[in-house]
Each structure stands twice: as C-alpha cells, then as structure tokens.
C-alpha cells in the first residue's frame, strides 16, 4: 500500500524503494494512496514496546499493541490487550482490548471485557462486554 509513494514525482527518493508495508509513514502521497482502496489494505501495526507520538492518518486499519499518543484518523482501529492510545481519535470502527483515552469519535465501538476507555466518546453504535470500564462523557451521534 505504501509502494505507490515511490511512483513518479518522488524520483529523488527512489533509492529508498524497498519500504516495508508495515512502516508508519506520513506524507501527502500516503494519504491519497490509502483513501482510494481502503478494503484491500493491510493493517499498519504499532507493535508491543513501540511508542509513537504524533499524528497519523489512514484510510485503512491500524493495530496498536504498543503506545500511540497524538491525533489518529483511521478507518479501523484495533487496540490490543497491551495497547494504549491517548489523544484525539477519529475512526469508523474501533475495537478496544487495551486502553484508550482522550477524545474519540467513531461510528462503531466495541469495548472488550478488560478494556479501559476514558474521556469523551461520541459514537453511533456501542458494545461493552462485561467487565469493560468506561469513564467520561458519552454522546450518541
């Protein structure tokens, strides 16, 4: 999915061609490439022990097993059992097994039995499994 960025105009960077699919990238080409074909995208992964601070935007899905801090705008967000996301999150669908805090806006949210959600949450559809913890303001869109 990130392969497209090296097509055409970025010829000066062509020496970097073998960019892995799971690399976390941010630039205009990335955005336009991902918005077009969201279904066929492989998930981006922030793996365990990895901490990312900054803004991220993707038309695909992202799995966070490590730590993400900042603004996140994706189609599908999965927070693994050890994962932590803090900041402003906009997503179509969110599945939380770990911790999520901050301002969250989404269509569909599933909060697992051991998950913790803290902050302002705006949703269209919510599911909380027994044992899940949620604190803060909830609003239905």
């Amino acid at each position: 999915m990130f392969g497209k960025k090296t097509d055409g105009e970025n010829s000066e960077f062509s020496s970097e061609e073998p960019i892995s699919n799971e690399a976390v990238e941010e630039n205009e080409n990335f955005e336009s490439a991902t918005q077009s074909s969201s279904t066929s995208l492989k998930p981006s992964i922030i793996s365990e022990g990895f901490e990312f601070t900054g803004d991220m935007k993707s038309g695909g899905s992202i799995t966070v097993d490590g730590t993400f801090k900042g603004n996140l705008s994706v189609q599908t967000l999965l927070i693994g059992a050890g994962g932590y996301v803090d900041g402003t999150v906009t997503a179509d669908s969110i599945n939380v097994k770990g911790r999520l805090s901050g301002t969250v806006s989404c269509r569909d949210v599933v909060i697992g039995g051991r998950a913790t959600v803290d902050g302002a949450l705006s949703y269209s559809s919510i599911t909380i499994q027994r044992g899940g913890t949620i604190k803060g303001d909830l609003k239905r869109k």
Partner: protein
Amino acid sequence: MADNNQNGCLTVGEGVKLTGNFVVPDIASISGTIEGELTAREILVGSTGVLKGKVTADVVDVRGEIHDNLTANKSLFIRSTGKVVGTVQYTEIEIEKGGDLQGNLLKSANGNSAS
C-alpha cells in the same frame, strides 16, 4: 421475573404511570412509567418501561429507558433496545450492540462484588 406475587417485589404493567418515591426491597419490574425516585435490589426495565428521576439498585437490566440519574451498585446491563441518558454510576457494565448510553459515566470502586 417477579411473577408469583413475591414478597418485596413491585411490578408496573404497561400503560401504568406512577409518580413518587419508591423503595422496593427485592425486584422492581417496570413496563410502565415511573417518575421520581426508585430504589430496589434489582430493577428490570421492560422494553416499554420508562424511568425518570433517581434510580438506585444493585442490579439494573434495561430494555426500555432510564433518564436523569442511575446508580447500579453491582451490575448494569443495557440490552439492544435499552436507552440510558444522564449521570450513570456503575461497578460493572455491559452494553449490547444497539444499546444507547449517553451522559456522564462514573465507575465506582465498589469492589465487593464477585466476578
């Protein structure tokens, strides 16, 4: 549910509207409308049931609506047709897909309930 005229139970049928303060030692099964204060051990709100005011119970199971203020000392279940709006305090919560929960949530650290 609270069918057989059990002691300490309150059953409010569909279309019945009550206003006032109610203390129910056991199960309150609500298919009508209650406005005011309701305290019970267990509250079951049927799909036509509406509670408005201050609601306190150990276990709350919502298929209808609860407005304003809800405290569930043990478990709060919001079924797919359920709607809860207002300030909610709970120890354990479960929401089925389609359930509607809006307002301010507080988790109380009342950890004396098993599981």
